[in-house]
């Protein structure tokens, strides 16, 4: 295990020291803070948020043309993970340092475990700092400290963000193992990012409209079917999963996704849900995200362990 720790520290030093990471981190940090700050300047958009959850507004409110913080995380978060992971192994290979490292008394699994954990730790530290800055900005603007419910909801959201970006990190590591050249690994990663965060929504809409076209005059059944197909397709995208988790966790009044029959909500009072119940709504998505991250890592682990190093 000492091998993992050495690799972990070494990798983290590399990550935090690398210029491209610093630039990316500053960009994302500034964007997140400015979004939250603009939201705080536009407190009128908080009107629909119940009083006891006002601080959550800094994460979900959008100011003017700028999207909300959650959108930035779900759209640009993958980029952080991919940048941290895409050259984890292929970079070492192209620099020819991998055989040097492995000739040291370090096990091969320590290398990949250490790289993954270092990436995850970097992501965790980065998000802690961004979240704390936003929270501080929120407390400064609103003038009261967060309550336990807000803190725990933000905590769960934080956890989900780290897992989400962690998935993209493990995907990047997988590509860095699969492709020998760093540039092809990077290109594939970017392709996956654009596909899952951008194209998948278009494809889902097109497919759903092909199978169950919604005409101007239509029945609720058709609308429900269209929505169900769309959501089914979106489910393969980690970005869509994360969007749902963020919506349910940060908005206590969200109690279901998709098409709801009005009869189902007869007698329902518009009261906020407890965190446990909010989490129960998106529990499948949460489990799916964690599973995706772990499976992706497991696959890259297996592939890396079976690779012939010396031939490289």
């Amino acid at each position, binding site marked *: 295990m000492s091998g993992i720790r050495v690799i972990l520290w070494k990798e983290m030093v590399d990550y935090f020291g690398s210029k491209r990471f610093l630039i990316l981190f500053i960009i994302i940090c500034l964007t997140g803070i400015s979004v939250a700050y603009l939201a705080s300047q536009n407190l009128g958009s908080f009107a629909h948020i119940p009083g006891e959850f006002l601080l959550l507004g800094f994460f979900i409110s959008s100011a003017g043309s700028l999207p909300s913080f959650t959108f930035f995380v779900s759209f640009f978060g993958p980029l952080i993970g991919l940048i941290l992971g895409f050259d984890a192994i292929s970079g070492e290979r192209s620099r020819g340092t991998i055989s040097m490292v492995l000739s040291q008394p370090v096990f091969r699994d320590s290398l990949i475990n250490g790289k993954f954990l270092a990436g995850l730790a970097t992501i965790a530290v980065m998000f802690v700092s961004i979240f704390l800055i936003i929270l501080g900005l929120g407390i400064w603007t609103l003038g009261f400290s967060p309550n336990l419910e807000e803190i725990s909801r933000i905590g769960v959201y934080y956890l989900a963000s780290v897992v989400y970006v962690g998935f993209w990190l493990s995907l990047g590591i997988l590509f860095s193992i699969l492709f020998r050249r760093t540039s092809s690994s990077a290109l594939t990663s970017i392709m996956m990012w654009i596909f899952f965060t951008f194209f998948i929504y278009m494809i889902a809409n097109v497919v759903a409209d092909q199978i169950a076209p919604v005409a101007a005059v239509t029945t609720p059944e058709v609308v429900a079917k269209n929505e169900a197909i769309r959501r089914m397709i979106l489910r393969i995208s980690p970005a869509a999963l994360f969007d749902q988790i963020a919506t349910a966790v940060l908005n206590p009044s969200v109690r279901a996704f998709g098409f709801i029959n009005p*009869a189902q909500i007869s007698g329902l*009072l518009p009261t906020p849900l407890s965190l446990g119940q909010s989490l129960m709504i998106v529990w499948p998505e949460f489990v799916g995200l964690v599973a995706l991250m772990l499976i992706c890592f497991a696959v890259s682990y297996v592939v890396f362990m079976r690779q012939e190093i010396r031939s490289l």
Partner: protein
Amino acid sequence: MKSKKSLPILLVLAVLLISGFLFSNWQGAKAVQTERGFVLFFKYPSVTVARKEKIDLDFMVINTGKREEEVFLSIIPDKKAKDWNVGFETRWDKMQVHSVGLLTKEPDNSVTLRFYAIPPDNAKEGEYRFVVKGTSLDRKIQRSASLLIHLVQKGGVKEEVSKEIELTSDYPSMENPAGKDFKFAIKVKNNTDKPVVLDIGADFPYGWTAYCSPRWEEEKKISSIKVDEKQTENLLLTLTPPPTVSKGEYPIKFAVRSGEKVVTIDLKAIITGTYKLKMRTETGRLNLDAIAGKKENINVYLWNEGSAPVEDVSFFSLDTPKGWKVSFEPEKVSSVSPYQEVRKPDKVKISILPPPRTIPGDYMFTVRAAGKQDQTDMDLRVTVKRSTVWGWVGIGIVVVIIASLVGIFVKLGRR
């Protein structure tokens, strides 16, 4: 020629002028004469009375002139009525009156006297005539008024006339549920030709409270009333039964007293009993947690705060969300007796079953217990939660993945 023709015209004119002047003078003299005058009259110049009763009649003297007058009054009975004891007296303090003084301005220009006539014991039935003469002090003006008394045997007169005070009520019997006041409207009629002052009293069951007020001024509580002659006063008797009053009929006696005479009227208050169903959960909480697809029970107490049993009480739920099943055990209670009699409430178990695919959140519906006589509502709020089964399934999946990851570590590690 001209002057000769005009002479007779002038003469005629002069005559007309002089005669006009004289005439106007004469008119003036006459006005001076009519400035004095008075009238005498009986309010009821012809009456029928029973024998052996004192007859009292109003008699008025009014000054119609422009000078103060003093009028001497004398009564001249006809031959048959020589033995009658007649005279005038003041209305209130019964002084004998021989002459009246009249001023010119109201209200002192008129005097109302009481003419009294007491027939002798042996007076026969028949008509008796009296003439009243009024003479001014200087004997220049004389006026007179006549009165005809028709004397009959006692009992020949109508019964009502002999009754001096009469009490009547349009609704002498009233029905009310317990807790409501009874209000009896009572008319007091004074058949005499004197105003009377009456003391008011009532006889009612123990524990009740009562007060009397003028009919249209309920906030005034009165204990006596003055009824003018031949007038009717409207009274309102308000009775408040005690809150614990039981069903039944309660007799009430309302009485007025004037001196020795007491007049009563019997009234009846009927209490029909009250019905007040009350419902409460065992713990007092009106909310409960439920899991979608699982039955949740809540115990409810039902009792009757009224005074009479509520019959045929059944339970049902209103505004129930779609697909929910709300059942009651027992479904019906044949009778809920008043709590103060049985001293224990009825226990009802409510089972609530939200459908399996309920969207989590708070739902509200109304539970109603409705009997023949009364009903009561209770709002229940149910917080539906997701079954935690799927939560554990998810955790299981993650555990399986981690376990297989560990398996891979063990199998492939340490190369």
